[in-house]
């Protein structure tokens, strides 16, 4: 049965679901991070223990998505206690009896995380509000958390143009890296003439060292689907594609479940909420190509072709999939839509800085004490993130630099930790906001090696279509190798800088255009590490370098 859903039905589902709730809830993280440490066995153990103790009427063991503090995983949260929730860390399947003792307010002797830790207290959960709380494989859980209300509201009360206006007013900018104003993009697609239009969610998450989008897709898939549906209504599309990388099998299977459930309830498909609005979503699985995160390459891939970018204009908003106007946004961008509709553009615009609104999810990783996912308001400083939330470098080492933006970004040295996290400030430092990877490096890190690491990545991931990127990244990589093997001279650095300039300004797509950034930023802030490796210029050869 499809397409018979009404607003009241949502409330009924929510109510019925509330009724099935138990006094205590043991939330077991079943996201990829914790799953790698037998989280499924933990859930089984807890289920068995609850049963053995005859506590089924009082305790619910719930599968949930990522709670954020992945470095302490596997994590189990306990709700319903008199005081506050308890978060057990480093749980093993054998801990099940002890956890049940904790439910009974008995001595448990387990490691628990401090909920007042800045890692938690400094967060502001907007897109991750449901992450680690709801069961991502049950649509009822999402509906009970006010899910699909925004879609209902939009479809029944607001005209498409007003939705675009609301998103524009919120100040939301794309979370896929470049920070393009989302409302402006939606408006362009809405205005583009076309018999058919498409909405595409970019879940390629290519930045190596980042997993915000994976976590959102695994923990709250309906949030993204609802955001896409609202976008489709706003721009006049009836078909969506979710492009997810093959490296994320759990995210893919949860999305498949979510789409199936939404269809069953009539929240996807024809005539949603008894309106003329129709929207279907298909999943497209990537196949291991970083460049497919670039929007024109992504479209080629969705069409089943080699993922090579093409020149823009025409932009996808005018001519996208199969020549039709296409809206492409990042996973986190779509995840912001429902909160904006529910709480209003003004509320959203009140968070963050002048030009960067709202929150941003970061994957805080590398040589930092506390590894995990954090959602913070824009405008927070890097220091607050790295030192307070992250607890600084591991083992008393010193933080040397923070890398943001992955292969397209740069390394920000420790002196600049007081920089505000917003699009403009990070760009000014030669890095970018990126999609949310934040890798902390300590004083044992060799920055030239880091530059080579990224150049190796770009050389490997270059699609090969245009010459500057295809051949330039190879030559830059070789020059970095030469420098690291102490065979280079000052002239090689000059050649490297000249190549950076060429590749940045002449490459066809963003991959090539940003590939020099890690080199340029390390040259800018850590030049001495390069020059220390240089050989003196051999005598007599200088004359040839007249050019």
């Amino acid at each position, binding site marked *: 049965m499809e397409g018979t859903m009404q607003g009241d039905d949502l409330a009924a589902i929510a109510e019925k679901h509330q009724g099935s709730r138990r006094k205590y809830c043991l939330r077991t993280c079943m996201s990829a991070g914790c799953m790698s440490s037998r989280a499924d066995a933990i859930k089984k153990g807890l289920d068995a223990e609850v049963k053995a103790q005859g506590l089924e009427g009082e305790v619910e063991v719930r599968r949930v998505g990522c709670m954020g503090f992945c470095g302490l995983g596997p994590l189990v949260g306990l709700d319903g206690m008199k005081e506050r929730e308890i978060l057990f860390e480093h749980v093993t399947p054998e801990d099940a009896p002890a956890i049940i003792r904790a439910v009974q307010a008995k001595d448990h002797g387990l490691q628990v995380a401090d909920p007042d830790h800045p890692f938690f207290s400094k967060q502001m959960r907007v897109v991750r509000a449901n992450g680690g709380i709801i069961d991502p494989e049950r649509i009822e859980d999402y509906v009970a958390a006010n899910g699909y209300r925004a879609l209902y509201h939009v479809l029944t009360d607001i005209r498409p143009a007003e939705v675009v206006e609301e998103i524009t007013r919120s100040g939301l900018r794309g979370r896929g890296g470049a920070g393009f104003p989302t409302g402006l993009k939606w408006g362009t697609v809405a205005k583009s003439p076309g018999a058919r239009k498409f909405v595409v969610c970019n879940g390629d998450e290519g*930045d190596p060292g980042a997993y915000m989008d994976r976590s959102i897709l695994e923990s709250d898939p309906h949030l993204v689907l609802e955001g896409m549906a609202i976008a489709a209504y706003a721009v006049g599309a009836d078909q969506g594609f979710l492009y997810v990388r093959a*490296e994320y099998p759990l995210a893919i299977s949860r999305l498949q479940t979510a789409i199936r459930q939404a269809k069953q309830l009539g929240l996807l498909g024809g005539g949603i909420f008894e309106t003329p609005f129709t929207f279907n979503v298909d999943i497209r699985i990537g196949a291991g190509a970083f460049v497919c995160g670039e929007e024109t390459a992504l479209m080629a891939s969705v069409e089943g072709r080699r993922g090579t970018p093409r020149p823009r204009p025409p932009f996808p908003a005018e001519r996208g999939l199969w020549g039709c106007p296409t809206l492409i946004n990042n996973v986190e961008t779509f995840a912001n839509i429902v909160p904006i509709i529910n709480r209003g553009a003004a509320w959203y615009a009140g968070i963050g800085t002048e030009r960067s609104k709202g929150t941003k999810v970061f994957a805080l990783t590398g040589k930092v004490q506390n590894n995990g996912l954090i959602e913070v308001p824009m405008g927070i400083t890097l220091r607050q993130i790295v030192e307070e939330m992250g607890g600084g470098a591991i083992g008393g080492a010193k933080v040397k630099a923070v890398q943001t933006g992955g292969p397209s970004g740069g390394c920000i040295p420790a002196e600049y930790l007081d920089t505000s996290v917003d699009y403009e400030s990070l760009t000014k430092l030669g890095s970018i906001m990126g999609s949310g990877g934040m*890798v902390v490096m300590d004083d044992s890190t060799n920055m030239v090696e880091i530059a080579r*690491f990224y150049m190796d990545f770009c050389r490997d991931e270059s699609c090969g279509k245009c010459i500057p990127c295809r051949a330039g990244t190879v030559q830059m990589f070789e020059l970095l190798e030469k420098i690291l093997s102490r065979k280079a001279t000052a002239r090689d650095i000059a050649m490297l800088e000249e190549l950076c300039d060429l590749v940045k300004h002449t490459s066809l797509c963003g991959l090539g255009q940003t590939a020099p950034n890690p080199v340029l930023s390390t040259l800018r802030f850590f030049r001495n590490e390069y020059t220390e490796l240089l050989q003196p210029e051999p005598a007599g050869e200088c004359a040839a370098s007249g050019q």
Partner: protein
Amino acid sequence: MTAHASGDKRFKILEAHIKKFQARQDALIEVLHKAQELFGYLEDDLLLFVAHRLKLPPSRVYGVATFYHFFCLKPQGAHTCVVCLGTACYVKGSAKVLAAAEAAAGIKSGETTPDSQLSLLTARCIGACAIAPAVVYDGQVAAKQTPEMVLAQLEKWREPCKATT
């Protein structure tokens, strides 16, 4: 019409999958995913079958299959060990983990041992960065790996009779 002259049932399953997409040419990548899932790797015969069924030039199928690193055109070993070389894993020493695995297995990453027992591969982030360095053993993600741990796992695979649990 039989799915494939060889009578191999897997071709039938693939055929059904292609039908699900109405043999649309833009489903090429989906079909290749399915083909690899069924057959383990994409040999010429299989690529030609896909080309025929989707009515695409073989050069297109081959071009796509070799563009995406997820597709392999050669058989994989009985076991696979994928070392993540993403940034978070790299700064936490995954290069040493890989070097240890390469030395122990006597092959480079991307290769399979001559006895077809082990394929050693690398990944560019599998999204488990908070528990870096991550290694995927036969599809199972393992957290915070060291050279010793990867060696222990390879050893365990090598002597399956001893690894009774």
